[in-house]
């Protein structure tokens, strides 16, 4: 038959793809074929996971390298020493004195110190409301106008007053103040340098960068009184050592931004090569404090990176900059060692000299990567297939279910009576897939099968596909997801835990109820159930494929957790259905979230609060994916399975 197919197609210039599709479509009549897809999608999942597991090996990962030649990392001599150290100590005392002062006093004092360096100083007050809490504070920033610059480009040096753990960033702020004083003396700056001391690590920087691009909500966030040019890069420093200092061991480099968007790899590489090569400070990432370059450690680093990327939360002051296509990293001091503040200062000096050399916006190197080590990474071309395979597995089962739904349960009705009540374009076409193969494939099959007479006529007919119920059901499920999304983003803090329990219970029970009510009122045929599952899987596959290009890790994780859905089928056997249903209950997104928080020793409410804050402040999209992509798919799947129980 393949031969025939070819001969038919050769005349026309069809791409292989279509040829293969033709073969597939022709093959659809083959009963054996319907047994293949489950194994195929299982294979996809297995290969996808295996693919990820081999990435840490040397054969699949690469050493990092700086591809933007202008950066010249570590090529300059650094002079941040000597009397600057005394000044730094003084500023650290100053910041320490501000610890228990009010926000206004703090802002005022910091502005005066910066103003004394002949910089243009301004402040910004901001206020956010998330889950009933008020996040309000003030940013102080100063602009050093580069003598060579014409206000077209700028780089930002950030020190948040409080770091991610809520500790006061004494030395970081003091270092920024000292560097501001020191940088002012240089005449070589080709870009403006903005020194930003944000009120806190996430919302403060967010408010500032929003206002800088004038995309802030003016009623709660103050606009910036002075601006500079287009921001080319940002470096945040997190060094919460008290007034008597603390010698650190390593630099912990944070590089992932909101919604899993990453900063340009070149910036990361520059930081690493300066800290490592020039200053001799070890670099680490993803809280892997002691990383012996072993496979296990690499894998762990990668997985941690994926989880933090998948969650898409802000991991530091730099995160808010990345959505604006401003490459940013945070340098965080960790451990007890012999490196002091001045070496950190020199690192920053050298880093800013490198950024100062930039002629163009960072664009050369990678934006999609998984880091295994400070000097080892995997590029998108290598890792993307794993997520894509997971996504494809859903599409495969969707197609399989589509074909299956065409299989006759009953004697065939009259083909002419096709009238889907709402023939939306695709629906319209799908509705009529059935006759598509009426003529030739019959023959094809007959010819390979060899025994034409053996083929029962019924198996050649394809039964009518009622599309109304499945389509509406699937669409409704996806809209239903909006409800919990809204609920979690707008419930005030004290009620969050109750809301969570409530949602957990309802989502757990809902499938069964829905199935019962469906069976009661609509009494969907098994075929309709198959179609429901088919459409929901098709959508899931599509969403995940699109998501994989935006946030690989999230797509991979969701795909993995939703993988069983492509195997869960409604069965007449009640016991089996019960077992499968029980398994699915464990995969309820809410349950999964709860389990994850338990595993990572987090408090659910904490997580929910962060998520709500993310939604209102950073524009976090993770919960949208959870509630509008993952949950509906799970819901549809479990309704179908539960249907087996109640019918």
């Amino acid at each position: 038959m393949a031969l025939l197919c070819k001969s038919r197609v050769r005349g026309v210039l069809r791409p292989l793809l279509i040829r293969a599709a033709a073969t597939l479509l022709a093959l659809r009549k083959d009963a054996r074929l319907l047994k293949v897809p489950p194994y195929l999608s299982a294979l996809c999942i297995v290969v996808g996971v295996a693919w990820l597991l081999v990435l840490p090996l040397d054969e699949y990962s690469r050493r990092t390298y700086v591809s933007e030649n202008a950066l010249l990392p570590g090529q300059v001599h650094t002079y941040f020493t000597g009397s600057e150290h005394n000044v730094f100590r003084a500023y650290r005392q100053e910041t320490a004195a501000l610890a228990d002062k009010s926000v206004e006093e703090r802002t005022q004092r910091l502005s005066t110190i910066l103003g004394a360096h002949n910089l243009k100083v301004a402040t910004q007050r901001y206020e956010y409301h998330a889950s009933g809490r008020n996040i309000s504070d003030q940013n102080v920033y100063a602009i050093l106008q580069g003598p060579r610059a014409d206000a077209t480009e700028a780089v930002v040096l950030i020190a948040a007053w409080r770091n991610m753990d809520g500790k006061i960033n004494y030395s970081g702020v003091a270092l920024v103040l000292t560097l501001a004083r020191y940088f002012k003396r240089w005449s070589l700056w080709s870009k403006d340098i903005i020194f930003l001391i944000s009120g806190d690590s996430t919302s403060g920087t967010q408010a500032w960068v929003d206002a800088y691009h004038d995309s802030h909500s003016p009623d709660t966030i103050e606009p910036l009184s002075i601006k500079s040019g287009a921001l080319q890069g940002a470096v945040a420093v997190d060094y919460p050592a008290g007034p008597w200092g603390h010698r650190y061991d390593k630099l912990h480099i944070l590089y992932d931004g909101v919604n899993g968007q990453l900063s340009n790899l070149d910036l990361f590489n520059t930081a690493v090569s300066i800290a490592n090569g020039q200053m001799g400070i070890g670099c680490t990432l993803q809280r892997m404090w002691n990383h012996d370059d072993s496979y296990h450690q690499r894998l762990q680093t990668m997985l941690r990176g994926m989880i933090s990327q998948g969650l898409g939360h802000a991991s530091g002051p730099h995160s808010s900059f990345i959505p604006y296509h401003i490459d940013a990293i945070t340098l965080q001091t960790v451990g007890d060692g012999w490196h002091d503040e001045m070496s950190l200062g020199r690192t920053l000096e050298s880093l800013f000299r490198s950024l100062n050399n930039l002629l163009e916006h960072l664009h050369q190197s990678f934006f999609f990567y998984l880091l295994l080590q400070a000097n080892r990474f995997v590029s998108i071309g290598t890792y993307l297939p794993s997520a894509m395979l997971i996504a494809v597995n859903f599409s495969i089962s969707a197609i399989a279910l589509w074909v299956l739904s065409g299989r006759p349960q009953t004697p065939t009705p009259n083909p002419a009576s096709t009238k889907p009540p709402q023939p939306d374009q695709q629906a319209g076409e799908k509705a009529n897939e059935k006759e598509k193969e009426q003529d030739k494939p019959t023959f094809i099959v007959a010819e390979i099968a060899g025994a034409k007479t053996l083929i029962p006529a019924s198996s050649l007919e394809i039964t009518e596909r009622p599309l109304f119920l499945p389509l509406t059901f699937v669409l409704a499920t996806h809209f239903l997801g909006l409800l919990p999304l809204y609920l979690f983003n707008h419930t005030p803090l004290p009620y969050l835990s109750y809301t969570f329990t409530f949602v957990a219970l309802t989502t757990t029970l809902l499938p069964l109820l829905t199935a019962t009510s469906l069976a009661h009122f609509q009494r969907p045929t098994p075929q309709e159930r198959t179609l429901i599952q088919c459409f929901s899987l098709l959508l899931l596959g599509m969403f995940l494929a699109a998501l994989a290009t935006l946030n690989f890790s999230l797509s991979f994780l969701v795909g993995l957790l939703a993988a069983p859905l492509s195997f869960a089928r409604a069965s007449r056997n009640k016991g089996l259905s019960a077992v499968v249903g029980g398994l699915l209950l464990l995969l309820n997104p809410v349950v999964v979230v709860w389990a994850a928080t338990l595993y990572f020793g987090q408090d659910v409410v904490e997580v929910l609060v962060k998520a709500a804050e993310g939604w209102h402040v950073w524009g976090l999209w993770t919960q949208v994916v959870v509630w509008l992509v993952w949950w509906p798919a799970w819901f549809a799947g479990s309704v179908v399975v539960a249907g087996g129980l109640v019918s």
Partner: protein
Amino acid sequence: MALDQQQALLFGVAAAVRLLLFTAFPSLPSLLAGRVEVSTPVTSFKRLQEGLFLYTHNVSPYDGGVFHQAPLLLPLFSLLPNPSYHPFATNVVFTVVDLLSAYALAQVAESGQAAVTRLFTSSRKDLRWSSAAIAAGFLFNPFTVATCVARSTSALTNLCILTAMAKASQGASITFILAISFASYLALHPILLFPPLALLCYDTRTARTKHAPNPWMFAILHTLGLAVASGALLVVSAVLTGSWDFLAATYGVRLLLPDLTPNVGLWWYFFTEMFDSFREFFLGVFWLHVASYMPGLTIRLYRQPLFVATTLTGIFAIFTPYPSIADASLYLSLVPLFRHLFPVMRYTFLASSSILYTSFLGPAFYHLWIYAGSGNANFFYAITLVWSLGLSVIVGDSLYAALRDELDVDRPELRGKEVKRI
């Protein structure tokens, strides 16, 4: 055709959906109007507003690089209140436009010209959908809704094309000529629809009246009519704008592609990357390519003129310089007219799923290129390739089905047999 209960309900719901979208999400129209997939430089509503602004302030809107749309739109829209302050009137207008298009489409379906023409009667002619169903397919097509909400002027072009089809399928020559000349006045390329639709008009006329009008006379008269109507439109525009500059600014832009703003078509990136010395040559080739389908299809399928017209709209949606999902929506809503061909089509699932995928991946990749900056232009370009491929598969497949259908009528003994083309 009187609006029966069902249709009234349908239209009511469609209008309600649109107005709801307009009012519930006030930022949605401007958002969609900014999407390159929906509005192109020659159909964008924002550019129309700019043109209106210049027009009302006595600056020639065509003495600039922004406004490339037909002059008659200016007085039309300048009657409405300023959309940036009181958008409601404009929204209503675009909603009505959609409803009228759907009505015209329903008329086409009513006429039954899709399956049964003067010279040809499909063997599966009973296999068809009600006109209401087809109108619903148009009205609830997400692409159509997006176009309407974005207030892109291609909705008007679609209306004119559909009206032309409806009138042609009813044999109403005058209105047909007016509609087609309006369509080609608005968007230039619909002029290619004239021959097949004229043929359709001729068929219906002969079918209705006993004695067939002389084909030559008919052709000449209608061509003259078209010439007169279009000429009149152009002259009126010239009088309106006070000069002939608009020709270069509207049709010139469509022909010469100075504005390379991305869209779902194949032209923009090709001519972004094209070497300067070959630009003119390839412009010629591309236009020739678009035009070349019309004669071929009309000659081969002269017995099914409506199908030829439909296929041409599909071709426009792929191969014209500034296509948008509006053109695609027009074609995809015309295809269900040929319900009787679906049994013979082969790659529908593949094509439709590829279109589905691209309509999700396209925006994602565009975001990566323009906003995230983490992907380059090739991402979006690749998606436009797949999109065009998907559409062309549908076009080719439906064409195959139509020919196969003809074959089944000509040689009934081959019905349901495997055939090969030689």
